[in-house]
């Protein structure tokens, strides 16, 4: 299995996302025993300028059509399909992010290659590549075999070390002139994040509530605790979707990435999309009624119990201590 591995460089508004380096590291690992070349694919008018940062790849393939400056998946799909054919690439790695969402499925439909989602581990097994995916909110893993290491994989953010994908080498740059179709789904503009009343990324203590908090009234209890602690309340997606807190308080894949000194997680299961946004907190204390909740696998401290009961008790204790 010596077909090339392609890595799609992920950018949003000119910023190269960390997932790019995580994928390059993963690609190097997958390539190692099979001597496959690794090509980074960079799209858009600024793409060539990124090459110096992509030294972990053997070469950087650049398509600098202005249409590709926009976050339109359609154009990216068309270009990637052509590159896969031209380079006889057997494996394509994509970021498991909202930016690259849907690319893999559509390319799989067009190339008939197998697509593996939520990939967080990889090993070779003879000629095959075995990918491990995380399913059911992190409660189940599944191993999939790609014969001859051929397929398309969406790489779970944070699963592979980014450092393995950084290098000082200068890779060869190859410009490709490809047909870029005008997308039917037309990008119009970015909508900036709502400026919230508080910036949860700047708090040293966060009281986070999930679906287990059960009601808007109970969110108020958490609000009181946050005030006592001098921090702020944030939440998982279901709480935001219920309209109990504004979007500016959402932590996770679509929301904010936070790194407080203490993250108190009440009634949050620890789904990968939430974990994404808070895994680097210095100390994570999780309270959940389910002793098997995935959040206990990553938290520093855990309590099996009812958040609604514990929050006011904790608030009292801290008040009492303050005197």
């Amino acid at each position, binding site marked *: 299995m010596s077909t090339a591995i392609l890595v799609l460089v992920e950018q949003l508004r000119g910023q190269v996302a960390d997932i790019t380096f995580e994928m390059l590291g993963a690609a190097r690992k997958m390539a190692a025993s099979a001597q496959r070349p690794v090509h980074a694919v960079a799209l858009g008018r600024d793409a060539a300028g990124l090459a110096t940062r992509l030294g972990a790849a053997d070469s950087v393939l650049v398509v600098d059509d202005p249409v590709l400056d926009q976050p339109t998946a359609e154009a990216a799909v068309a270009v990637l399909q052509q590159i896969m054919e031209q380079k006889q690439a057997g494996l394509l790695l994509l970021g498991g992010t909202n930016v690259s969402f849907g690319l893999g499925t559509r390319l799989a439909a067009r190339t008939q290659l197998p697509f593996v989602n939520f990939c967080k581990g990889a090993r070779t097994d003879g000629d095959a590549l075995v990918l491990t995916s995380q399913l059911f909110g992190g409660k189940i893993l599944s191993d999939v075999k790609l014969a001859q290491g051929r397929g398309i994989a969406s790489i779970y953010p944070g699963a592979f070390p980014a450092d393995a994908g950084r290098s000082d080498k200068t890779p060869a740059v190859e410009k490709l002139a490809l047909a870029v179709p005008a997308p*039917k789904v037309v990008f119009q503009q970015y909508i900036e994040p709502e400026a919230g009343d508080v910036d949860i990324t700047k708090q040293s203590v966060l009281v986070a509530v999930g679906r287990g908090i059960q009601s808007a009234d109970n969110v108020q209890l958490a609000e009181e605790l946050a005030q006592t602690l001098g921090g702020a309340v944030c939440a998982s997606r279901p709480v935001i979707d219920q309209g109990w807190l504004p979007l500016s308080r959402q932590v996770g894949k679509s*929301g904010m990435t936070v790194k407080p000194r203490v993250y108190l997680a009440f009634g949050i299961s620890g789904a990968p999309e939430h974990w994404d946004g808070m895994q680097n907190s210095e100390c994570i204390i999780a309270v959940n009624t389910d002793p098997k909740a995935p959040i206990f696998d990553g938290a520093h401290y855990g309590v099996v119990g009812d958040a609604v009961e514990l929050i006011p008790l904790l608030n009292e204790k801290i008040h009492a201590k303050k005197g």
Partner: protein
Amino acid sequence: MNLYVLLKMVPDTVEELNVAGDNRSLDAEYLRFKLNDPDEHALEQALLLKEKHGGTITVVTLDAPEVDDALFTALAKGADRAVKIPADQAALGTIATAKAFAAFFAALPAPLAADALILPGSQAVDDLEGEVAAYLAELLKLPYLGVVCGVTAVDGKVTAVKEFSGGLRGRFEVPMPAVLGIQSAEKPPRYVPVAKVRAAMKAAKIETAAIEPPGPARALDLDHMYKPEPTGRARMLEGAPEEVAARITEVLAEHGVA
């Protein structure tokens, strides 16, 4: 507008999940099912569009445990028709599921109109092979956008908002007919009283689509499924709630908080 909402039942991940004897599926015995979260939002988005622009909402599903409840609930909320495709979802992966839906849309008496939107949920917790929405769009050769969190329609075109990260979103113009994978609706999904669902059960009917069930089950060579080994397990604080609260207070103090 002609609005089609696809509803999928998924295992409730709050329950304990076990791998079945075949090592390739979940043990069905203790599974509890619920409607995929994004589908609640897809239905809500459809209801909001219907309220504004009129039209009909058809909810479509494959056969799955407890799916009738979800269909009657959708009817009670304001969907006009509920259709079941006679194929067991448990046996099908994403690609086969998308093919089943493609067959359903191909068999409609008239082609999808210029005011038609297909609204699946953006994603589900078991999407090993990818998202049905994107695959279906490919099969039907329709425009597609995923992780959508808002849809408005003006003059035969829809504007859809897609989520990126960090609260950043993007606005896109989408020609109809199209497939939009809905992540969240503009408003929280509405609540419908049980009495109304009961009334729907009495008054409404679930139709069965007359299409051939799809072929091969799964495209991927799934080797096996297993439960993760707990990596760094949290230090569990035990005792009565009072004691636990006291221990947390100490931990907070150790970290210079409170």
